[in-house]
């Protein structure tokens, strides 16, 4: 009988790190691509590393590179801050779903867990939670492991990005969507609960065609949540 009350174990940390393993390939590819792009764009290692360590959100890091400046002004700082907030706004929704799990946790540990939120890590933990798991150690362990992988891969990409042979030959350019697709299967609870997913997909496609950038993810996610609220 699983312990259905939220709790925290140290053993959960290593279990969580292991649970995050399927997300490693996607993280390595994305973060290496970022490291390579950052070095081509002329960022220093410290800047690329700082972005990966503290911002730690791939899509916004990539967009950030596009509007990166040699000389900054208050206006350009405000611009990059706003763009980052828009690209990462979906995290507001991810964090909201963690509330029942984390509401009685110590504040500092929750802040750390929330700092470590990523789409992939959240999907893994959503599955764990829906199957009855409540150990916050799993959440933290998977978050820490993914963060470490992200940092190492940025470092590797910064120096060795140009040395990696055509990643497309092994399908590695699509490793992230393939991982996401795999995570869809355990979420399937029949066609009716999946109706909002269709709405999300349709809205995302429309945005992707009409609006440049990464906005399609946020638009689709919000549309899916609204559809879920409307469908009885």
């Amino acid at each position, binding site marked *: 009988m699983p312990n259905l009350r939220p709790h925290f174990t140290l053993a959960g940390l290593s279990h969580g790190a292991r649970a995050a393993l399927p997300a490693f390939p996607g993280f390595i590819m994305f973060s290496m691509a970022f490291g390579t792009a950052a070095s081509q764009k002329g960022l220093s290692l410290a800047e690329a590393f700082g972005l990966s360590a503290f911002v730690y959100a791939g899509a916004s890091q990539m967009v950030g590179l596009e509007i990166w400046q040699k000389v900054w002004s208050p206006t350009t700082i405000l611009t990059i801050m706003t763009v980052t907030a828009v690209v990462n706004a979906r995290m507001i929704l991810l964090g909201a779903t963690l509330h029942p799990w984390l509401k009685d946790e110590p504040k500092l540990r929750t802040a750390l867990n929330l700092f470590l939120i990523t789409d992939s890590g959240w999907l893994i933990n959503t599955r764990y939670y829906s199957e009855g798991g409540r150990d916050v150690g799993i959440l933290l362990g998977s978050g820490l492991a993914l963060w470490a992988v992200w940092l190492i891969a940025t470092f590797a990409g910064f120096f060795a990005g140009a040395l990696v042979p055509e990643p497309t030959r092994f399908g590695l350019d699509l490793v992230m969507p393939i991982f996401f697709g795999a995570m869809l299967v355990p979420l399937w609870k029949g066609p009716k*609960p999946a109706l909002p997913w269709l709405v999300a997909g349709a809205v995302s496609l429309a945005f992707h065609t009409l609006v440049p950038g990464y906005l399609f993810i946020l638009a689709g996610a919000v549309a899916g949540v609204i559809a879920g609220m409307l469908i009885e």
Partner: protein
Amino acid sequence: MTAIDTLIAGPWGATFAIAAMTVATFLCRIAGMVVMSRVRITPRVERGLRALPGSIILATILPVVLDNGVPAILALSATILAMVLTRLELVGLAAGLGTLSIIRLFGW
């Protein structure tokens, strides 16, 4: 130029940019938790949030997969089939990447 402008235009500019992006992202990360601890969660809100994981997945992958055409669709199908059979993410991942590399090996 004010003192702040001069400081931001100097060597510390990039640090300010990274800090600004970090603050913006962290606010997004904690906002959902803060809001949920202050509002009463109605069944409607709960239903909406339950639709989120699948919605995020489709919103993220559908445009990317369609942009990449038939090979990507076949790879994704292989992943889903492997997941339905085994429920192991690593197996699903391997099935998808394997399918994609075989298709590309034949020059599609």
